């Protein structure tokens, strides 16, 4: 049978077996495994069997439950794991037989529907070729071969043209901005452009940019030829060869 050993600085405090009932852990004395320390919540965590596996579940404790240094909300326990609660730790001995219910047998052997898989090189090539063939027929794909570019029409910036290569392009006075604004009273971060799977979105920074004369209300997807205005800078967003 699985066993939990409550330890404080390598000294054994208490040992409890885990059967069909959950083992409650916490500062309150009515827990199966009471832990007398202010860092421990009254009902801190519990350990129980589910589908043949030993599981620890944090009960919204203030300071958290850790399994081998990892903060967990729910975790499957293995033989030799340590559960850390405040300054105490609980050694997990799961070497014994697990209590078996008919439910647990069924659950454990059920096939996993959404199993993640990686395509091997050939599958990947085939699928991408197929995707590319379909993509050629779509209008969007032709634009994707071109480089998204910001062309400055008027205003003060460090370059006249910027090719967008990053996932996130910052427009502002910051030394690390891609599009660097010049002049007094310009914000460090004026606006930003985020490349997403379906296109490029301009979003606010400390200021709200306008697209084609309208102030945006949130991140807005850019189309070829859109006019962006921010802090006196006017730019065209275009796809270039």
């Amino acid at each position, binding site marked *: 049978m699985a066993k939990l050993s409550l330890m404080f600085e390598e000294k054994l405090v208490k040992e409890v077996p885990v059967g069909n009932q959950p083992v409650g852990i916490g500062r309150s004395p009515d827990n199966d495994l009471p832990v007398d320390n202010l860092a421990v919540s009254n009902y801190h965590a519990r350990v129980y069997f589910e589908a043949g596996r030993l599981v620890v579940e944090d009960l919204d404790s203030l300071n958290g439950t850790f399994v081998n240094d990892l903060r967990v909300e729910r975790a499957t326990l293995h033989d030799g794991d340590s559960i850390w609660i405040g300054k105490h730790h609980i050694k997990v001995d799961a070497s014994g037989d697990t209590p078996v219910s008919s439910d647990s047998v069924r659950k454990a052997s059920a096939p996993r529907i959404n199993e993640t898989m990686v395509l091997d090189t050939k599958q990947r090539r085939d699928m*991408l070729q197929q995707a590319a063939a379909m993509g050629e027929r*779509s209008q969007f794909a032709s634009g994707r071969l071109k480089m998204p570019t910001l062309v400055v029409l008027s205003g003060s910036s460090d370059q006249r043209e910027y090719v967008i290569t990053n996932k996130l392009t910052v427009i502002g006075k910051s030394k690390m901005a*891609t599009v660097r604004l010049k002049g007094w009273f310009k914000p460090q971060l004026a606006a930003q452009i985020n490349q997403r799977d379906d296109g490029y979105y301009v979003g606010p920074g400390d200021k709200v940019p306008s697209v084609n004369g309208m102030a945006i209300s949130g991140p807005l997807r850019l189309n070829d030829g859109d006019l962006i205005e921010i802090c006196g800078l006017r730019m065209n967003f275009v796809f270039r060869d």
Partner: protein
Amino acid sequence: MGLLAWGGRLPGRGVGPLRPAESQRPQLQIASGGVTSVGRVRVNNEDCFRIVEPLNLFVLSDGMGGEAHGEIASALAVETIVKHCMAPASSEDKDATLIFGDMPMAWSEKTRRLSNAVHLANKNIHESAQKNPEQRGMGATVTAVWIDDARLSLAHVGDSRAYLLRSGALQQLTNDHSLVAEQVRRGILTPAEAERSEMQSVLLRALGAHPEIEVDAEEHPLFGRDVLLLCSDGLTRMVTEPEIAGSLQAEPDPNKAAERLVHLANDQGGADNITVVVVRVDMESRGWFSWLRRGAPKKSTANGAAGGN
């Protein structure tokens, strides 16, 4: 990918001892928290994450492969990356640069090392699977972030994600290396169709599948009040982006924000393992008039240590 536009303008910093950003212009304050959950359906947790506070290094990995092998792969990924980033700069580090070939000159030392670390993790997982036939087919995603001096280095493979919440807008900093995301990028599927697709779990890239791998790496500047989120697909398949943005805005404590997101994912089905790491960045303004605005200088209480006292 990811050429730096501001490269060369930054003062060049040598290899130097690794220390959190210290007193170079903006004073960075970083608070972080993370939590993982097996979810409501799965019996194993194949996710793994690590927060290395002294380095401001954050690593999250989602493993795959039968039995317990997904857990082995994700743990190996996290361990390899943390170890490689923590090792003091040495000749061994130069070797790693040689192994993994050219990198854009503009990249900082941290970005290079992080990218190398991900290559190394791929190598370790692949070799382990070659040596142990029962581990065949195991793999892992990884999203790793290293913050230094108002700059974020990011390295990524797979379909875990990094988001940046800034000025109220949630922006995705990573491309999913999944078939459906690639189809959206090619204009074949709309994002809504991708969300309904049965092919969501098919990855084009993952650590461990091949002896060599292409790693996405980028650098971004950070600003005050930025919130960074790393998460496994167990969160993003259950919780919408507006819900994520709302939770991050509503809960200032990074640990509580992470727990809140995990609860949301579990409440909405918890079909997969869920792992969330939240990092809040603040900049102590040290301009000549900042004391006027703020009054007496305050002792900061940032860096929310995850865990008991």
